[in-house]
């Protein structure tokens, strides 16, 4: 078969690959999208079963996924096995790289919290001197956020807080429970805002590229999707310095294939994108490719009980519902001990409480759980981490994956900034809970290892100065002008926010810019 040159080659089919496919095909541009994993058949690949029928009673095979805390025996097959695609880190610097390979990438599994960044993030260096500003601001990205929010059907309330920009919402008008009202009042006295959460409703219970983005591209008739295609190198025409396609390997047979393309979009997820660019030995004129790795800390928080809801008295009026505390530290004043800030997920549940919250056992524990059922209240941190230059990844050519590709060594660690931030969060929310009349049952100052949040970012950051960034404000490589990076690797800072809305807004903006440039014949 003759080698055909495709217009745009998209590597990765998650949220940003899907968005690029949607925008470009709707503008009449033919796209070929490669994904390293199989096509999911949701009905065939999932079966409802009781845990008692699983081989390991829910514990899963020992040692199978030691770095995927989110995994269970139910879901183990959806995550990448690190024996198949290994990575490593120096002793004492654990990194939890949580990966999925199937069409749609990680997009079917995200938590769906949907936030805009504010200018506290976009202009972070101006605010506190650390890192680099983004080359764009909220005003620039706001129109794209609005369109993305409409696609994802983001539910939220309008709070008019500069650090928590409002958006194009399906308005959340649900009433607060009495317990939440008391927690809000306690926060008000302490200068801590408590708002409604913001979340993508999506359709059919899902807000993924496979149901919200890719079907629109398919409908144009201009999208070719090829699963099981592991790109091992982006190829560059030495005479022009432009990308001219890729070499990929069939996941099953290991047959190597070559594809030629006019434009390449890399949307493989922050660390896979970085690995591919490093293996291809491109896009690193700045020297920052692979550096400034950042994400968010998760895991620290408290568990508490709402007394009025105990002993079978829990109703939706008394307790229940979720809330969000947006960043409130280091805005107008400086908090000692740490830069930047954190948000808090707050949840009140009418369901059973967790046995771990009680220092009891046997019948006494059963009695406690019966008594406290319906009264649970928790807070969990989402804290910004700092993307120091030293937090970086390197290619490890000594260890290759199942397809012969060099793997990553990830060298990153948290500092006192994150430790102090977590302490402040736990102490503050415990004080708020106590002021609201709740019983604090457990506090946890420990947070999970880097990577756990699955919000890795920053290793191909954007900056208008080619010496400081891998891509410009249009997600376009400074070095390879017909190569665009659309995932969160381009983020100059993490913020406390779930990155998905920003990733999608940037991918939408970059794709429209690319379409315009292709039309003009510039790219």
């Amino acid at each position, binding site marked *: 078969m003759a080698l055909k040159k495709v217009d745009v080659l998209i590597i990765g089919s998650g949220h940003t690959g899907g968005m690029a496919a949607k925008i470009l095909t709707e503008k009449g541009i033919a796209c070929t999208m490669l994904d390293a994993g199989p096509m999911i058949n949701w009905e065939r690949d999932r079966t409802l079963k009781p845990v008692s029928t699983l081989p390991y009673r829910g*514990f899963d095979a020992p040692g199978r996924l030691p770095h995927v805390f989110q995994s269970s025996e*139910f879901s183990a097959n959806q995550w990448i096995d690190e024996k198949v695609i290994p990575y490593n880190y120096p002793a004492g610097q654990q990194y939890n790289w949580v990966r999925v390979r199937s069409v749609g990438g990680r997009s079917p599994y995200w938590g769906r919290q949907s936030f805009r960044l504010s200018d506290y993030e976009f202009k972070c260096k101006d605010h506190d001197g650390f890192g680099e500003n983004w080359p764009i601001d909220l005003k620039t990205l706001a129109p794209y956020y609005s369109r993305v929010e409409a696609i994802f059907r983001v539910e939220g309330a309008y709070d008019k807080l500069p650090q928590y920009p409002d958006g194009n919402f399906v308005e959340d008008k649900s009433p607060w429970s009495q317990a939440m009202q008391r927690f809000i009042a306690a926060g008000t006295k302490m200068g801590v805002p408590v708002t409604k959460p913001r979340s993508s409703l999506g359709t059919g219970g899902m807000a993924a590229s496979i149901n919200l983005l890719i079907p629109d591209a398919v409908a144009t008739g201009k999208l070719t999707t090829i699963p099981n295609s592991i790109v091992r190198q982006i190829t560059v025409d030495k005479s022009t310095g432009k990308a001219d396609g890729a070499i990929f390997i069939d996941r099953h047979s290991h047959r190597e294939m070559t594809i030629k393309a006019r434009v390449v979009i890399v949307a493989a997820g922050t660390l896979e994108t970085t690995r591919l660019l490093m293996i291809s030995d491109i896009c690193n004129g700045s020297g920052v490719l692979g550096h400034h790795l950042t994400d968010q800390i998760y895991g620290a928080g408290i568990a508490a009980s709402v007394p009025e809801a105990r002993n079978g008295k829990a109703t939706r009026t008394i307790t229940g519902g979720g809330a969000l505390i947006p960043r409130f530290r280091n805005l107008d004043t400086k908090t000692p001990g740490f830069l930047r800030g954190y948000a808090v997920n707050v949840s009140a549940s009418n369901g059973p409480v967790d046995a771990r919250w009680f220092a009891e056992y*046997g019948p006494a524990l059963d009695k406690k759980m019966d008594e406290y059922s319906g009264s649970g209240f928790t807070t969990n941190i989402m804290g910004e981490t700092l993307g120091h230059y030293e937090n970086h990844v390197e290619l490890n050519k000594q260890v290759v994956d*199942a397809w012969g590709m060099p793997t990553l060594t990830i060298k990153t660690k948290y500092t006192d900034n994150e430790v102090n931030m977590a302490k402040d969060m736990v102490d503050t929310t415990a004080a708020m809970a106590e002021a609201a009349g709740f019983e604090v049952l*457990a506090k946890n100052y420990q947070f999970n290892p880097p990577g756990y949040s699955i919000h890795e970012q920053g290793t191909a950051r954007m900056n208008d100065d080619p010496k400081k960034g891998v891509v410009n404000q249009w997600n376009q490589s400074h070095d390879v002008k017909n190569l665009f990076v659309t995932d969160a690797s381009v983020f100059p800072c993490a913020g406390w926010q779930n990155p998905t809305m920003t990733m999608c807004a940037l991918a939408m903006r970059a794709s429209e810019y690319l379409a315009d440039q292709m039309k003009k014949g510039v790219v």
Partner: protein
Amino acid sequence: MKRREFVKGLAVASAAAGTALGQQKAPQPKSPADTPVVDQGAQATAPNTASAPAANERLQRVAQFHTPNIPVTQPDVVATTETRYFTPARYATLVAFSKAVMPGSQGYPGAIDAGVPEFLDFLIGSSPSERQAMYNTGLDRLQADSMKACKVPFAQADAKQMDMVIRPNLRAWINDHPPTEPYLLFVNQVHRDVREATLNSPAYAKAAESAGARTPRLGRVVWPLDPGIETWVANGAPKGSAPLSKHAHA
């Protein structure tokens, strides 16, 4: 050489059969069930007969076969696991600890009736060494604490004596963060393990069914995806099949 000749012969036979069929007037499929299909196994062993109408009809019938409903049972209902990992002394301590923290109540089985010690012997026996060490060291410490405080082995202690040893080491904790001090980690994490292994056991599910309660802990099992890359790696498929540079195999 023999294999190559066999494959070559197979290709010729298949092509011949295809040509012969091609000279006939092709019947139009009436429905998906009428679409000619090929039995790959029969074609490999007897290519001439595999494409025969009778063979096609047989294959169509098999393709429409529906699996009969044959109820299946968990092995735990009729069989036990032989314990082989923990030493007898440690296993006796584990049994006593399991019985103490999860005794069972209101018609639901406790840890012993749910076969938890046997299950944990199997699970920990196949676990990474850190987890094994946490169990072994912790069980030894539990025994030592019992001897020190009560002058009896933990397995022979009464409820009050056991409480003296267990209770001071219980902590409240959340999410993935049990206490980090090794012995506190043992007491609290193993308490959790015993509890989970009981609640997730076939015996507990059966008790729930008998009580007319909801099936405990239903979840969506994700099957290996198309067909699961682990299989290919385990079978050594990558080796030499995709040289990364020209003539890398030479």
